[in-house]
């Protein structure tokens, strides 16, 4: 059974490492500031007792007021997982740092979110439309897409 790590415990660890990076944490997930996302991901990946080497998925949800980007990591070695979230409140030009340099598996998923949700990922090497064509108007998965 994959053990879902408690967000609170990990949050405590992270708070020590990067003060002020966690906004809130619950049993299931933890919500991080988007600026410190890259640091957190790097720590999650390199810390020996966490060792999150596998990125399950990235997705984004449109809550009208803000976009929530959800990451789930798994450690194949320790068999535990963690859900990490971040939010961006800018509707016009939402930006989140890209984690492609750490997890190459994020490549297509970040492009997908850019295409369908319109969130751009800072530092992604090839951020362009993936499913729809260049010149398509709007981002279909946004709730206000006509």
């Amino acid at each position, binding site marked *: 059974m994959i053990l879902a790590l408690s967000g609170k415990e990990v949050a405590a660890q992270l708070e020590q490492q990067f003060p002020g990076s966690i906004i809130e944490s619950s049993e299931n997930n933890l919500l991080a500031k988007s600026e410190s996302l890259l640091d957190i991901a790097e720590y999650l990946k390199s810390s020996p007792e966490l060792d999150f080497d596998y990125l399950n998925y990235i997705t984004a949800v449109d809550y009208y007021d803000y976009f929530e980007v959800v990451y789930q990591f798994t450690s194949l070695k320790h068999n535990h997982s963690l859900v990490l979230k971040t939010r961006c409140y800018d509707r016009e030009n939402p930006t989140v740092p890209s984690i492609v340099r750490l997890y190459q598996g994020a490549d297509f998923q970040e492009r997908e979110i850019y295409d369908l949700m319109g969130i751009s990922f800072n530092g992604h*090497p*090839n951020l362009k439309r993936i*499913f729809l064509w260049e*010149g398509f108007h709007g981002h279909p998965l946004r709730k206000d897409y006509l």
Partner: protein
Amino acid sequence: MEVAEPAGIYVYSDTELDRAEGEAIESLKAHCQQPIPDPDEWLEEEVRRNILLTSIDFMLNWARRSSLWPAICFPACCAFELIAANASRFDLSRFGMEILRASPRQADLMITAGTLTWKMAPQVKRIYDQMAEPKWVIAMGACGISGGIFRSSYNVVPGYNRIVPVDVYVPGCPPRPEALIYGIRMLHHKISKGRAIEG
């Protein structure tokens, strides 16, 4: 853990080609909002033909319908029913149809197995244009007829008849191979009524 940065891994080609593709899609989308009427005039036509022409027609039509080579245009789910129809149990090769020509120039029949999206539409139109006359199209499956379950989607073409003229519609989601074979038989009937020589 240090992430090695392999040289050249993140170098992608330029987006110029993508933009050109996007423009092609947009222009096609603007032009193809109405269905193309089905090529069915032959149904009403009754013409007097002499015996010689009829027998030539008969031979040509026999040849055409006995060796219908399908072009490869299998976007989605129905493709697997088409392959199943080609495989051992249903065996389209009985009708001389087992030669799937990968090059559209050598094919006679386009079986449009699957959902057509606007991004795909220019390629399908291109395949159709590349096929040599005489050519036929079978719209297979609900998506091919009207967009089916995905009709309300933002990227789905509601039916192949927006892009290419369709001769036979085979309903089903996906149609069973028997249904497809029935559709092919109908196409055979249609071909056998065609006239090669005006008279």
